[in-house]
Each structure stands twice: as structure tokens, then as C-alpha cells.
């Protein structure tokens, strides 16, 4: 009898006690606790641990003093990001060209073969003008940048620099109410947003994990690099040649990426103040010693793995989309093709955003994979509904200019690409990870609204200013 009373009493007391504790508590209490623990550990180690030859540790300390310094940390990160993109953009030009020319050369033989077996026009259209050109475009535009970007990134990671990036970014993420590890899922997003959804598992707290998932889309993935690089070099760096051209292209792409990161912070902040309220949790981030990776092994492994993934995706996604676009462009309802019906329907809205109906159509059909947005757009622009052989970027620019493109169209298309809804694979993964239709839908809605808002504002202000 007595124990029962005592215990039921204590449960009530527990709540009261907790409330009392909360009143006593202050927001910096956890920091103070953790601080005391670290100080004590440090004191113990200073007394009880003796280092005799720790050249490597000292080197790591010295490097960390620079790389994670409050002053130099961020400028160095920018420079590193710039270097990686510059290498990617400048280095990818030549091989991209070579691959495109190779596929063009091969196409002549394929065409000859189709003529030789006297294949019907529609078969040639679907297989060569649709499937072959769609796929080879993706391969020649995507493959070289990936084969440079990923090994460079992997090298930075293996040298031990990426954990320092996470360390630097933690300060900002904490300020916007998110988790520092979000910078790692962001880094993953540069490769593939869909894969980054899985990597968000490293964040334990469900609230912060959701933030990472909902904002990951704002870092451009593999599939969007091609679009960003091509448009930046065609329209933004138009007046430059040689090295300067690559430099201007790089700055534009870096600017776009920084804008995406800014949006990430903004959205994280807004969400953490509204639907995903809460305080960021503490975590321990291991900063491993800097070490020289096995250079060639890293380079070869990461480029082979990536290249293979890109090829596989090109075949799996770009091929059917190429066929679909060709079919849409060649099947008519009334006297207009299905494709044109869609384009005409979307055009007024597209114009409001500084885009056009073709571009919006390309983004919609490109839902399965961002890689195919640009090829679909070009296929749409050409009356035959098939991607013409684009031997050099000059031809490509002419196609755009003929459709009334200006630098504004290019800029808004880049921004739309950066900010719009995640690709189908990513959405499926978001659903799998969150098990919630609501969050998957929000992951679609939030970026789309932002993309529409940003491009609308830019298009309208440019119009106003003339």
C-alpha cells in the first residue's frame, strides 16, 4: 500500500521536478557541460599522456589551424570549390568534343546500315534520331565532367579535407537550426541527390534529417552539371575565349552553386522555425589526420565507378525519354503534334518566368532524370522532333538564339534547374526514407515554388528595367 502511494506520488513529482529543472536551465547549459567534459579530458591527457615523436599529429594540427580557421576556413573552401569546378569545366571541353565527334562518325555508319536494310522511317526515327542521339548526347556531355569531378572530389575526401568542410559549415548549420552533418549529405548531393537521401541516415535526429532531405535538392547533382556548364559557357561567357572563357564559366557555375547553398540555409532556417521546430543536437565529428591517399587508385576507382553509373543511367533513362520525345513530336492530334499541344499550353506560364513552353515541357518530361532535360529541349526545338547532330557548341547556341533566347533565358533556365523539383528517383527515395507521402510531396512542392518565385521575380524585374 505504502509503496504504491509513494510511487504514484513520485511520477507526479517527476513531471514537476522536470519543469523545475527546465526553469533553472539555460540554453547554454549543454555547451557548458560539454565544455567542462572536454576541459577535464584535456587536463587528464596533459598530465597522463606523453607524445614523443608526433610529427604527423603536429602537421595535422598546423593544417587544421589554417583549414578550419574562422578567418581562412571559408575563403579556402571557396577557392577549393572554384578549383574543382575549373578543372572540371576546362578539362571536360576537349574529351566532350571528341566523344561527340566519335558518336557522330558512328551515326553515319548506323544510318548507312538502316538504309541498307531499307528500314522504315519511323523505325529509324525512334531508334537513331530518338534513342541513339538522346543517349549519346547524355554520354558525351556528362561523362567527361564526371570523370574529372568525382576523382577530384574523392581525392579531397581522402586527403582528409571534406571532414574539415563539415566542421566549418557546422557553425552556419547550427545557426539555421540544422545539423552540421547536413554538409556531408550536401557534398553527396553534388554527385546524386537520390544517393544523398540514403546518406542522410548519418543524421540521427529525425527533425534534422528531414531538413537535410528537404533541402538537398538545392545542390546541383551530376545530372544538372551538364545543363549548368553548357548554358554558362554559351551565354554567360560568350564574349571570352580560351582560358578566360573557362574562368568566366567557372565563376558563373560557382555563383549558381553558392546561390543554391544560400537557399539551402534559408529554407533550413525557415523550416526549423516553423514546421520542423527544435534545437540542433550535439554530435562528435571525427577529424582524421591528413594523409596522402593512394593517388592513382583513388582516381581510377572513382572515375570508373562514376562513369559506369552515368553510362548505365543514360541507357536506362535517357533512352526511353529520347524515344518518348520523338513519339510525342511525331504523333499528331489534329494538325499539330502532341508535343506542340503541350508546349503551347505551357508557353504563357513559361514566358512569365522568363522561360518558354519548350523549357517547361523539357523539365516535365525530364522528371525521371535531370540529365535528359537539355537533350529533350533541343529535340523539342528542332521541328523533326529529333536531336540533330550538334557538332560544336556554336551550332547549339544558334538553335537557342533562333528560339528567342537571351542571357536572361539562360540564367533563368539555370536557376530553374538548380531550384526545381527533385528527379523521380530522388522523390521515390525520399518516400522510402521518410515513409510519408506528405513529406515526399513537400519535397516536391517547396523547391518548385521557390524555382517559380525566383525566376518570376528575375524575369519581371528585368522586364521592368527594360
Amino acid at each position: 500500500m505504502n509503496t504504491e502511494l509513494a510511487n504514484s506520488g513520485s511520477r507526479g513529482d517527476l513531471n514537476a521536478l522536470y519543469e523545475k529543472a527546465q526553469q533553472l536551465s539555460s540554453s547554454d547549459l549543454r555547451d557548458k557541460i560539454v565544455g567542462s567534459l572536454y576541459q577535464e579530458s584535456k587536463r587528464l591527457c596533459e598530465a597522463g599522456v606523453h607524445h614523443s615523436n608526433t610529427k604527423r599529429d603536429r602537421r595535422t594540427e598546423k593544417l587544421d589551424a589554417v583549414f578550419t580557421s574562422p578567418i581562412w576556413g571559408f575563403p579556402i573552401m571557396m577557392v577549393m570549390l572554384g578549383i574543382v569546378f575549373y578543372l572540371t569545366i576546362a578539362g571536360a571541353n576537349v574529351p566532350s568534343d571528341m566523344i561527340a565527334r566519335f558518336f557522330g562518325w558512328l551515326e553515319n555508319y548506323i544510318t548507312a546500315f538502316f538504309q541498307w536494310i531499307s528500314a522504315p522511317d519511323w523505325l529509324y526515327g525512334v531508334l537513331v534520331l530518338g534513342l541513339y542521339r538522346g543517349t549519346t548526347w547524355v554520354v558525351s556531355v556528362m561523362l567527361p565532367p564526371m570523370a574529372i569531378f568525382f576523382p577530384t572530389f574523392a581525392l579531397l575526401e581522402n586527403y582528409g579535407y571534406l571532414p574539415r568542410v563539415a566542421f566549418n559549415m557546422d557553425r552556419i548549420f547550427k545557426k539555421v537550426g540544422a545539423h552540421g552533418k547536413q554538409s556531408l549529405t550536401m557534398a553527396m548531393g553534388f554527385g546524386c541527390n537520390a544517393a544523398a537521401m540514403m546518406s542522410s541516415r548519418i543524421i540521427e535526429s529525425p527533425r534534422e534529417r528531414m531538413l537535410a532531405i528537404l533541402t538537398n535538392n538545392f545542390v546541383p547533382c551530376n545530372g544538372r552539371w551538364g545543363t549548368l556548364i553548357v548554358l554558362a559557357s554559351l551565354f554567360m561567357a560568350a564574349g571570352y575565349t580560351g582560358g578566360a572563357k573557362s574562368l568566366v564559366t567557372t565563376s558563373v557555375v560557382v555563383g549558381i552553386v553558392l546561390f543554391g547553398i544560400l537557399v539551402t540555409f534559408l529554407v533550413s532556417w525557415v523550416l526549423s522555425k516553423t514546421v520542423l521546430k527544435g534545437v540542433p543536437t550535439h554530435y562528435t565529428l571525427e577529424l582524421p589526420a591528413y594523409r596522402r591517399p593512394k593517388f592513382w587508385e583513388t582516381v581510377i576507382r572513382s572515375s570508373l565507378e562514376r562513369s559506369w553509373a552515368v553510362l548505365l543511367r543514360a541507357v536506362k533513362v535517357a533512352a526511353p525519354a529520347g524515344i518518348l520525345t520523338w513519339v510525342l513530336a511525331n504523333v499528331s492530334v489534329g494538325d499539330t503534334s502532341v508535343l506542340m499541344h503541350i508546349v503551347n499550353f505551357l508557353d504563357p506560364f513559361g514566358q512569365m518566368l522568363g522561360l518558354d513552353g519548350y523549357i517547361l515541357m523539357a523539365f516535365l518530361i525530364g522528371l525521371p532524370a535531370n540529365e535528359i532535360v537539355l537533350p529533350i529541349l533541343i529535340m523539342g526545338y528542332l521541328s523533326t522532333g529529333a536531336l540533330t547532330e550538334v557538332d560544336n557548341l556554336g551550332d547549339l547556341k544558334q538553335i537557342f538564339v533562333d528560339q528567342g533566347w537571351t542571357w536572361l533565358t539562360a540564367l533563368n533556365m539555370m536557376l530553374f534547374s538548380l531550384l526545381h523539383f527533385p528527379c523521380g528517383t530522388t522523390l521515390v527515395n525520399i518516400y522510402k526514407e521518410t515513409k510519408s507521402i506528405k513529406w515526399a510531396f513537400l519535397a516536391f512542392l517547396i523547391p518548385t515554388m521557390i524555382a517559380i518565385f525566383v525566376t518570376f521575380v528575375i524575369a519581371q524585374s528585368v522586364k521592368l528595367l527594360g
Partner: protein
Amino acid sequence: MTETYRVALAGNPNTGKSTLFNALTGLKQHTGNWAGKTVTLAEGTLTHKGINYQLIDLPGTYSIFSNSRDEEVARNYIVFEKPDVTLVVVDATSLERNLNLALQILEMTRNVIICINLIDEAEKRGISINERLLTRRLGVPVIKISARNKTGFPLLLDTIERLAEGKLVCEPARITYDKDIEIKIASLEPFVAEMVEDRISSRWVALRLLDGDESLLDELKSRLKVKEGSA
């Protein structure tokens, strides 16, 4: 009738905790579904000098607040299941970081042994550790081992035995926080002590409540409820 003592293994990830667990238990292990939770913990048995021990491999964590499920599991086991001995495995090559967890565990329970693992690796890198000094400062046994090479095991096993049998009494050094926090702890502790009696460290519970540890609060509530139900 021989008694079986329970020994829990805690530690940071990548400190060789599981290597030690495997080395001590050999093939005598299984994964047990613990306390009806979906978390499985590896368990194994060990006999030393005719005494049986049950070893429980807790999840590797960097801290033992309630940041994640793993941390909650480890904390609940140490605090509520009260193992006879808790081994905290730390990495000799990054002792400073690892001691954080050890210090947190020392706030929760008394019978702790700190195993400095990977001592061979540390010596190779020119790190020498004065375990006697650490033992004095921490108030619990600090033992250097290498789980990989199975060095330091005899002393470790003897210490486990002495601690389990009560032949060795630990007096863990406690961290003094800044004045402000200490005053708050002091004002809460008597009330906590009334409630948890001497089953759990009231100082630790007071500190966790100040830190807003709701998961611990829920755990305390349900533990008290279970007791009531069985009464």
C-alpha cells in the same frame, strides 16, 4: 550455485570494442533481444578462475546523452540494468576525445574499468600513457591492453573479478562544473535523491534533467510504473 556477473562493454566507435568482446568470449556468444526493444545486443560468456561472466557489447557511441537510439540503449543498460562491471574501451591513440565518454559514464555508475586499447599502435606512434596517474585522477582502474594481440588480459580479468566480488571499491572522481551549474544541481539533487533513492546517482539525474533530457524522463517514469505494477 555459482553466480554470473554481468560485464557491459561501452566505448566510442572504432576503438576495438568488438575485437575485445570477441577475444574475451571466443565463440561463446549470441545476439540477444534486450528488454523487448528492437535493438539487439551481442552477448557472450566467459569463465575466469571458476567464476562466470556474461559480457554485453553495448552500441559504440561518442557520447551518452540521448542524441540517438544507440546512446539511449547504452545509457539505459548502464543506468537501469546495472551491470556489475562496466568496461569503457578507449582508443590509446586519441585518448583525449575518448575520455569524454569515459567521464560521462563515471557520472552514471561506480564500477567502471577503463581499458586503454590499441596500446601497441600508440607505442608505435610514440605516445606513452601513464595509467597509474590516470587511475589516481579518475578513481577507477585504468588498464592498458591490446585486444588484437591479447596483451594485458590477465590484469584486466583479475580486475574485473576483484571489482565484481567487491574486493575493490571505486571512488570515481566527479567533474566539477561551473559554479552556476553546481548551484542548480545542488538545488535539485535532494528532490531527485528522494525519488530514485540510492538506485541511481541523483547528481547525474539532476544534471540530465537540467539538460532537458526528455528521453531519460520518460524512461524514469516507465521504470517507476513497472515497479508499481509488480508491487
